[in-house]
């Protein structure tokens, strides 16, 4: 079945909030409302004509006006694939510190979404409501900010690990060296990070990060590097 057929099938399923199929794109996609996402995914997985067994990829893309989530699905039985998108419009003045769009998690439909959604939260700060284990996955828990946002400020330290090219080596620091946690952030704005929603699984050892004591990423340069 091609994408038009899948879209027609989806439209006949009686789910609200399904948009038109964009056939001008190289991989035709359909935009759905965030509320309808779980129903759409469940339908695409369970319907015998669609039979999307596999969620390939969950991608968040930051654009000027929105953050857009793309879900790539494919079926091994019927050799077809499909793209579902959710668009989260950017609120007025929403930036990397203050704006964390929220979409429902599909980890209950596809197990594969678990790690993909954790990665998107980690790197782009998209909150997946109802995710069973919403921790960071690639970056350490004490990391502040979401680096794939366009306005992310590069940190110069993480804890006492230097991340700059011209930083003093750790073993050459004098005895009175202090971690740069007391330095103010350059923009002068406080960094607000929403607390992680409670996890169903306990933290695998270690302690939960102390957000207050984590060093502010007092970076000097931006993307110009």
């Amino acid at each position: 079945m091609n994408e038009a057929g899948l879209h027609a099938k989806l439209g006949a399923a009686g789910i609200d909030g399904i948009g038109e199929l964009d056939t001008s794109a190289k991989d035709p996609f359909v935009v759905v409302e965030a509320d309808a996402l779980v129903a759409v995914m469940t339908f695409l997985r369970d319907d015998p004509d669609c039979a999307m067994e596999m969620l390939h990829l969950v991608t968040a893309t930051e654009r000027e006006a929105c953050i857009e989530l793309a879900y790539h699905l494919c079926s091994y039985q019927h050799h077809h694939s499909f793209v579902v998108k959710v668009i989260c419009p950017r609120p007025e003045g929403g930036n990397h510190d203050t704006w964390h769009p929220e979409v429902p998690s599909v980890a209950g439909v596809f197990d594969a979404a678990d790690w993909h959604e954790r990665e998107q939260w980690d790197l782009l700060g998209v909150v997946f409501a109802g995710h069973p284990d919403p921790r960071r996955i690639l970056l350490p828990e004490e990391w502040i900010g979401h680096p794939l946002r366009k306005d992310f400020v590069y940190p110069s330290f993480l804890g006492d690990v230097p991340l700059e090219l011209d930083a003093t080596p750790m073993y050459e620091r004098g005895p009175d060296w202090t971690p740069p946690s007391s330095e103010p952030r350059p923009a002068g704005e406080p960094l607000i990070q929403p607390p992680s929603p409670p996890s169903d699984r306990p933290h695998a050892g270690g302690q939960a990060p102390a957000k207050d004591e984590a060093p502010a990423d007092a970076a000097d340069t931006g993307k110009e590097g």
Partner: protein
Amino acid sequence: MEALEMFTSDRNADVYTEELKLNLGPQHPSTHGVLRVELAMDGEIITDSWCDIGYLHRCAEKIGENVTYLQFTPYTDRMDYLASMNNNLAWSLTVEKLLDVEAPERAQWIRALVAELNRIASHLIAFGTYGIDLGANTPFFYAFRERESIMQLLEKISGARMLYNFIRPGGVANDIDDAWMDEVSAFCDDFEKRWVEYNTLLTDNFVFIQRTANIGILTKELALSNGCTGPVLRASGVKWDLRRDVPYLEPYDECEFDIPVGEGTHGTLGDCWDRYWVRMREMIESVRIIRQCIEKIPPGAHMEKSMVKMYKTPLKPPPGEAYVRCENPRGELGFYVVSEGGNSPIRCRTRAPSFCNLSVLDKLLPGTMLGDAVATIGSLDIVLGEVDR
């Protein structure tokens, strides 16, 4: 006598045991890099496990948003550094899809040829290090001997030993000549004999079968739901290979080759031995493809002419997005690139096969012994550079 009674009676009845948290990695010889797994142990049995990745996170996606399309090709080398050619191929196909160009016919055959050579090299590492994981050191030395031959062959055409940057958007960097192809066929003849040696060394080894059969059983449903691909999925009995089902290069359409799937020969379908054996047979199938490529490779240009002009200025694909999947040695590698018409994409997302294959580990480990955890991790054949990117 009392001691004997203590030993034979239900001696666990009043022994107090406590759950033990065990930390495996990131510096551990069997985690294939810097994977860290935290295990909750009840004696020797794993009761729960948590994967901790990110020790090799190298910001590839951020870099992709800052460099041009051509400049990103070397970074794809460094994701799955055991199969650089295949990564280059996937990236080049993505950029070509964005630009609506297609590589010339000869370039496609060269691509398939070098990609299959690299697949053999990659599976050889999987074979050699899997032996080390399970206590057999000899296969490692055999595997690296043949791998060196492949490295030297690929060095002759690309100039680099491991990270080639050879397949580029529009074609391949250099043409290949008949003398080189003769060397490749000589290697193929040699390799088929060596492959039989490997089987006598490891595949049919009694101890090896005991360590891997019926261990780490991955069912078809679990594999599909977790997005496992490649040999891991095929070992669970799903006959799916992009090279056959969605041929993304012309040679895969025209060459004859089989898709090895797991059969549960020594145990249950989808156990560690099946995953290992699927990889071993894939090497022989790759040799078949290479032979046919050498036979059928057409003359012509190795680089699209219109692309050569474009190389002088940064590529600027029209606004749009493309998602391309390729069959890598570890599974389906996908690149999802969003362009807004600039010099570099605004999003450069990688679907790394190892990332998805590894996510199943937490579900495989509980209930198995600690020694089997090493066997399971090794059989998934992850590359941490690709998991973390």
